[in-house]
């Protein structure tokens, strides 16, 4: 598979979860393990351009696929507008749900660059945050939409390539 644009390979047990492969084998610990039941969304990564919950994807199922994690949001030392939005609008507190939230937000903005509050709330509704009450996450994603300067679109091409 490729992870954040780099080819990686490894022999794994058939039962190994993608979240554990990323965290333990590749040491990409920005992807978190929160619930095992696809409810919390701290483990969200992209697989072939689509957000998935990596606690319910087997590493073997990701073979040959293109994975993007939070570590792949920053490109050439430049934070993604979503990352900047989370900082500017206080969209995070403990930071545990943040990587998954940001990856879903990036996907939303790639497909809907000017989402309404309702559309943002729908998009992140499969993920749980215990700190922010969601308000500032919504504001952060709106901030990113308003401050993208074409940055997001450029990123989309890179990732989709």
């Amino acid at each position, binding site marked *: 598979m490729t992870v954040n644009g780099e080819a990686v390979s490894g022999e794994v047990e058939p039962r190994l979860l993608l979240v554990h492969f990323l965290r333990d084998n590749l040491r990409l610990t*920005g992807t978190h393990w929160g619930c095992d039941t696809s409810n919390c969304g701290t483990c969200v990564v992209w697989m072939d351009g689509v957000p998935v919950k990596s606690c319910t994807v087997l590493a073997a199922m990701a073979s040959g696929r293109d994975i993007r994690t939070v*570590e792949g949001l920053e490109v050439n030392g430049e*934070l993604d507008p979503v990352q900047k939005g989370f900082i500017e609008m*206080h969209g995070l507190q403990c930071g545990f749900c943040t990587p998954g939230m*940001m990856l879903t937000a990036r996907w939303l903005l790639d497909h809907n660059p000017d989402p309404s509050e309702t559309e943002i709330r729908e998009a992140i509704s499969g993920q*749980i*945050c215990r700190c922010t009450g969601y*308000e500032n996450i919504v504001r952060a994603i709106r901030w990113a939409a308003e401050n993208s300067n074409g940055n997001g679109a450029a990123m989309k091409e890179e990732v989709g390539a």
Partner: protein
Amino acid sequence: MTDLQQRPDGVGFGRVIRKEDARFVRGKGNYVDDIVLPGMLFGAVLRSPYAHAKIVSIDTSAAEAHPKVKAVITGALLETLSLAWIPSLSHDVIAVLATDKVRYQGQEVAFVVAEDKYAARDALELIDVEYEVLAPVVDAKRALDPDAAVIRTDIEGKKDNYIFDWGSGDEDATEAVFKKADVIVEQDMLYPRVHPAPMETCGAVADMDPISGKLTIYCTTQAPHAHRTLYALVAGLPEHKLRVFSPDIGGGFGNKVGIYPGYVLAVVGSILTKRPVKWVEDRSENLMSTSFARDYHMHGKIAATKDGKILGLRVDVLADHGAFNNTAQPTKFPAGFFHVFSGSYDLEAAYCAVKGVYTNKAPGGVAYACSFRVTEAVYVVERMVDRLALELDMDPADLRMKNLLRPEQFPYTSPTGWEYDSGEYPRALELAMKMAGYWDLRKEQAEKRARGELMGIGISFFTETVGAGPKKHMDILGLGMADGCEVRVHPTGKAVVRLSVQTQGQGHETTFAQIVSEVTGIPVADVEVVHGDTDNTPFGLGTYGSRSTPVSGAAAAVASKRIVDKARLIAAAMLECSPDDLEWELGRWQVKGDPSAGKTIAEIAFAAHATLELPEGLEGHLDASCVYDPPNLTFPFGAYICVVDVDPGTAKVTVRRFIAVDDCGPRINPMIVEGQVHGGLADGVGMALMESIAFDEDGNCLGGSLMDYLLPTSIECPSWETGETVTPSPHHPLGLKGVGESATVGSPPAVVNAVLDALKPFGVKHADMPLTPAQVWRAMQGRPMRTDMAIQ
């Protein structure tokens, strides 16, 4: 001192983006499960499938034969180390691994240490435990029945499930006001068992260095120093050879205060294998075995005159503490600060009686941003006031306004002896009502009711009780609740501040830098915060009960003031004048009447480390420390208004609006305060509408995963509307009060009051949380259910 505008020079209080975010948005946080040490092994816990069962035998031979298993630990082995039982936080004991019997579903029975975490889980399947199932005690109301099974047979002579009786207030005076009252309203209500459920579960990495004998424990703890001392006391480990390190914590909310068996097992595993051992629980383990919150069965009784003057309040509580009494609160207070239940009102008398019982459920009780059970207290009084309003046919806002404490009554001594430090209650309620457009909402509601639509408006006015606490009244296992802080200014004028408390998302790396900056004038960016490492921070009891700002924040302010005072003496030496001739202009001591002659804190810092001859008796360098023993608690407060719509066809509740006016004194960083309030409001919506850990008749936990234990998402939460008033604390050096738990404490009754207000046409007087569609539907039929048991 408390200018809330952000200064252009990045100094002091105001909206500052957080220092910690740079790593979190890059996925570079450092949580316990991210820690990898050379040669590290992995632990997994075998848990009881039964709520109550005798352990007949445990056969670990197959597990031990697993090629990747390094150790299998049972209660019998721990007994040889005197570690099978450890003291609880409430003068009881808890089992690390069950020896005689299991007392709740999910209790720890054995621990496997293996080369990888999958192998450790595999080996759990190879352990053969023979149980003899016993009758469980599930219903707290039947725990003291003569035929109830005795849970704590480990306590010599124990013949029942009784833990304690405790009361506060003047019972006779309260009975007297009930005798003269025109109106008395009584109501049973349950604050169900809920769970803090931080996104990061609990875990630890224990690393015993067999050569130096130094044990390092990386742990999800809100209180690293308290943990270190408890390990030393419990296990007899020398405290200087113990280092507790609390790295980034993925949310705590009180879930990460206590010492869990898993932590102790990781330590024992490391000692036995001489290698680092990591243990991280999964979500089910977190929900089923770690500190739950609430589980208070309350009977409220309120007395008033017929024109709505509240005279007295009495509450009788049956407290379900689970299988071990392991609530985390100051020693003298077995019901936490519940006795602040007279709330924000001017009452003649109040009395509460709390009875604690054991049941076959996980231990805990004080958690989930509860401010030591102020959550339950606020819920009962705010529900009782609404019940009274219903009985008197008065508007709940009018009834509250008539009875709120008036500003001139502060400092106010409550009927149960609390001294509220400061408050301007009517101002906060007026602001909330104005923001909500309260009377317009009532008009809209009347119109909708006429059309058969169900709209509800709920109010809650809360008084928080935080910043525990004065040493003369408060300790945890004998440790006084004072906190230390050290501030050091480097020669070039940059500073480091070392804290006893530990952030779990509250942003201490930013806000404590702001406190030091506010007092010394050193820019926020130039102040580094060190915390979470017992080898490198002063002692203190940690972060919970919204105590960081009122206690540790005060310590930081006092230490910073000592820096400024010392800087004055050094500046005087530099300027060859008397200290009395100098005046402080933030960040600079200057000569009175000649502002051009002065020295900045950076210049003074360098001189303090240089060759300047200092005045007699003054040592060099520019550092200071403080151990702060708060003279009193602080009492933040707020007025909340919730607007809900209930679907008459499905009984589904939608929170349309939520208006929250908070007064926590001056705000260090308004952005962070607002964020804390938002999070607590979401907790309140969750508890009021969704969250509950119930049990079936066999004691099976029905809330053991996030599929069953429902947490609010972005869909259930409205866009919060927040407002503020500012009433400083008279005794905190910067007037600060603390805010972390205010919204969790204050919001549930606002939601519940709103839903019951919507259901008024059905004649519903009360229904217990969570107000799920099923519960609301049943309430509309006049038969609300108990929410602590499987659906009857």
